[in-house]
């Protein structure tokens, strides 16, 4: 259960990083990535995934599964 940042949509703005309750987001070559082992989709902490709510780009952060499919 994890979200994933779509690299070619991410602007590297860093808005998501400090919002994550699990410190799952980190910078990688001017873009940001989610550690799937740490991401809980914010369950138990907030009603909505914080990174999605703050990200300025539509559909930049999606469930990991839809990626695989």
């Amino acid at each position, binding site marked *: 259960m994890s979200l994933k940042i779509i690299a070619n949509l991410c602007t*590297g*703005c860093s*808005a998501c*990083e*400090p*919002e994550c309750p699990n410190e799952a987001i980190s910078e990688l070559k*001017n873009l940001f990535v989610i550690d799937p082992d740490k991401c809980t989709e914010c369950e138990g902490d907030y009603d909505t995934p914080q990174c999605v*709510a703050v990200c300025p780009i539509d559909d930049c952060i999606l469930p990991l599964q839809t990626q695989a499919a």
Partner: protein
Amino acid sequence: MESAAASYVSLADLKSSHNVLATPAEAPAHVGCGTSGGEGKASCGTSAGPDDMPAHVWDKVKNHPCYSEEAHHHYARMHVAVAPACNIQCNYCNRKYDCSNESRPGVVSQKLTPEQAVKKVVAVASEIPQMTVLGVAGPGDSLANPKKTFDTFRMLQEQAPDIKLCLSTNGLALPDLVDEICKYNIDHVTITINMVDPEIGAKIYPWIFWDHKRITGVEASRILHEQQMKGLEMLTARGVLTKINSVLIPGINDAHMIEVNKAVKARGAFLHNIMPLISEAEHGTVFGLTGQRGPTAQELKAVQDACMGGANLMRHCRQCRADAVGLLGEDRSEEFTLDKIEEMEVVYDLDRRRTYQERVEAERQAQHAAKVEALAATEGNEAAKDIKVLVAVATTGGGRVNQHFGHADEFQIFEVSAGEALFVGHRRVDLYCQGGYGEDEQLPSIVNAINDCHAVLVSKIGACPRDELKGAGIEPVDAYADEFIEKAALSWFADYTGRVARGEIAHAERGDASIRQGAFTAAA
């Protein structure tokens, strides 16, 4: 509203007469001059510029190019992009680029870590003694991720204590951070306020990120509005100077701008900068895509004029690029790229900076004296009384008419009457002269950009553009090359009204001009 009008100085007081004797020299810290509440009109004689602004306010603004109209000729500011995150979305912003609030739209600044930023600032300040102000602006909101902004300020203050600090914000996070701001001794804050009515705000802001949720619609703008007003009041109460930026969006907040002006004035805003929406489809902003247009020069000026007498209006803002280096309107950032800075041996020379700044003070005194002298020339001319015209000026800085018409990529616009030459704005144009040859296709666009002016003051001009300008009804003037601008404009005005009085020419009004949208991004 306890905090209203605390350090407020009205526009008329700031710019008009020179009643030197009326200076309230003993004004207490952070209080203007005993005006209270209500309309907040400062009633004592705190008047313009060096002679007659309250000393504590003048001290704060005099070397800040964004605040003092005089200072922007001599001093430089620099912005660093250390805080790219943002907590709201504006319809005029594409977040792939810089924050449109404080920067030129459609431009990407180099993102720096606080350490890199401080190194860059110290390198620039050592090289360019005019550099007196560091700002943290876009891309992003300086307070959305405050740690980076404050880390930068703290480190810089340790290394270069004479540099002033400022930041710009959309205001959402401001109330929570005002005390932090005061701790770092940051005495200029810019807040972008586009509305004081959430219904109007809903057309400008699609959402905000607030209390761990994305909030949309009128509710989002209501929260933003409340935070902005609260933040402004808190800053005023603590004696921090505030500049309000407003983006003028025709059909959305143009008729409303006077309300914004009143609201920020009542809360003690020091300056109100109304700037045109820059909106092009290729920027990919919501407004760019919906075809929302920006204002024409006349529309912008009409709103600015309507707001005169409110908070001081600032008209020289160029929506400069966030990482630009140099005097307003010039850019030396190429000399200070990250690679070059890494190689520099930086010695921070405070004495050299002081010497330069003393020289500038002397130059400013001379500029002021020249203006007083020129004002005398129109005295007694009846025709001059009812005439008010705009003139365009080509300058490379230093407050003088010193640029060749063909080399100007921007004209400063002055409104001239018998009593004063008032800076009212600037117009970007495409360079007429490229590689030494006049480009005739560029000329019509330059004429359009200054079509509301009666004259254009330059150091030199070729025969061809001279004739074309005359044909369009704009008088090309090179008789005042290297004179101080205000003196030149007033002298030309005396000459012009003299000719009108003698019946040699007839005075006529001029038309509107267009704000050159693409010129802001052409260099990007």
